[in-house]
């Protein structure tokens, strides 16, 4: 891969390997995400999708390899989760995790872009600007009616949206979304696809998903992972036609 191209990419992974007790979760993984791009990542269980997210967000340190962000300006392997989040990478977990004992509004308020260190947070006040941002977010994720509800009381789909809302509140350059439609009804799945497309107008997005119908719905470039490295890349139709992909994933 040409080193010169790295400067263009928003996210650049090359030669990334991670092993746990001899098991190679990632094996020489290479991946490029361009600014403004939406990418779907598919792969069977154990293909390394979650580990890849862990590496990008600083939760797991790779044994070898480069993980660069924002045109090569930041080496993510040297930074911790909080710093990476502040740089502009937001992550949505596979299992929706919101702050259950906080209200929906407080969940979003915590995620809003603002100084993250201790003392400014202690002194933080509610401002009109903050309220405007919140209103905007509530409009996007359609949870206005649940504003004062404790997040623990939301339905599964609502929690997924709240979490996406929290991602948006951070206003990250790149969103990592892990299986956003798991456990959703068809209607919710469709709406989520629409929501992600809307988000993609202003943010780069990486979606990890099992649901092929959903990936088709997104209509974006697809990367197939297998045993910790990239097996195929292309449109959904191209990868579906790939014999190796059919063997390891679609044809099981």
């Amino acid at each position, binding site marked *: 891969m040409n080193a010169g191209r790295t400067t263009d990419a928003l996210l650049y992974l090359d030669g990334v390997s991670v092993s746990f007790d001899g098991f190679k979760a990632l094996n020489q993984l290479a991946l490029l995400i361009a600014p403004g791009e939406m990418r779907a990542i598919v792969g069977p269980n154990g293909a390394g999708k979650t580990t890849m997210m862990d590496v990008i*967000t600083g*939760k797991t340190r790779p044994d070898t390899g480069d993980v660069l962000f924002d045109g090569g300006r930041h080496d993510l392997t040297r930074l*911790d*989760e*909080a710093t990476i*989040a*502040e740089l502009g990478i*937001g*992550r949505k*977990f596979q299992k929706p*995790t*919101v*702050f*259950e*004992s*906080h209200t929906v509004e*407080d969940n979003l*308020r*915590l*995620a809003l872009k603002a100084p*993250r*260190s*201790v003392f400014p*947070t*202690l*002194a*933080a006040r509610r401002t009109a600007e903050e309220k405007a941002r919140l209103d905007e977010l509530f409009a996007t994720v359609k949870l206005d009616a649940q504003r004062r509800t404790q997040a623990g009381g939301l339905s599964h789909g609502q929690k997924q949206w709240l979490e996406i809302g*929290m991602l948006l509140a*951070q206003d990250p350059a790149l969103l990592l979304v892990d299986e956003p439609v798991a456990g959703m009804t068809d209607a919710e799945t469709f709406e989520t696809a629409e929501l992600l497309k809307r988000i993609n107008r202003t943010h780069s997005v990486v979606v990890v998903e099992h649901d092929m119908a959903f990936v088709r719905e997104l209509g974006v470039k697809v990367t197939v992972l297998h045993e910790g490295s990239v097996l195929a890349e292309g449109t959904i139709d191209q990868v579906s036609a790939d014999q190796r992909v059919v063997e390891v994933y679609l044809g099981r």
Partner: protein
Amino acid sequence: MIVQRLAGRLGLSELAFVAIVAGLAVLVPLANLTMPEGSLLHVSNASVVLFGKWMCYALLALSLDLVWGYCGILSLGHGAFFALGGYAMGMYLMRTIGTRGVYGNALLPDFMVFLNWKELPFTWYFFDWFGYAALMVMLVPGILAFVLGWFAFRSRVTGVYLSIITQAVTYALQLAFFRNDMGFGGNNGLTDFKDILGFQVQAQSTRAALFALSALALLGGFAAAKAIVSSKLGLVLVAIRDAETRTRFIGYRVEHYKLFVFVVSAVMAGIAGALYVPQVGIINPSEFSPANSIEAVIWVAVGGRGTLVGAALGAVLVNAAKTWLTAALPTLWLFVLGALFILVTLFLPRGIVGTFGAKFLGRRGTK
């Protein structure tokens, strides 16, 4: 203005709490000093000391609730901060004894003379000055909490591991303070105090004043804790408690928040210990005993963690029961305490206030 901001957020049970503690701060000393003995309204000297102790325990419970109830850090070593604050105060009280000790040495406390020491250890320098001692009451627990927290939180030691470490710390401190050559009175600790800021420690009026101060310290501690938990930082603390990883991925440096609240809490516990020592008249290494720290945890659990008022209430209730039972049925007390631990965790996980008084708590009384 801060008062106003706070008052606006107080719920019914919190207002009641503030009113009761403030009322006690005034009424107990009055009833003790002005009412004649035998009068129905008279509060005996022994009761003043007992209530004063409870106020200190309540403050300790409050500090524990701040870290455990709101941030999920179950410290099994908060007794260490309490004891360190107590020792700092005890050292001031020892230095002020001066020539009135058994050996009449102007510089060295009795136990040092007894051990045949010639010089005051440097750790005891300046403790004859109250201002310095008061500073140490807060600094020493604060610094220990900072160092411990710095290492532990940065290495992401959480949950039971952290609990076990804090317990080991207080245990190690207990062993250390047992040693004579640590220079803190060894086994016997510090005692035989004479006066504090020129007032006789044993005097009725001093005790009444110390009670009032303890009640005020409890109020102050409550105000500080309430200000913290109802700020945006309080939101972050609860977020850490409920979903630490998520909080980190949103961009908060979890370890800094934990460190902040841990240090604040340790300082509060230190102040509680400092007020406790002149009232009970002694501080010794048994205050570091791990069992003490765990007992404080059950106060918080009984009252209701994450409610602040509940913690204070729990401390008073459990200690009132202890005072009554250890006098009436001494063998029963440990069974009751043991049962309390079991029953509260099984059947009343949110404690008294959390279960019955939640709707009377102000904003962010949590859960």
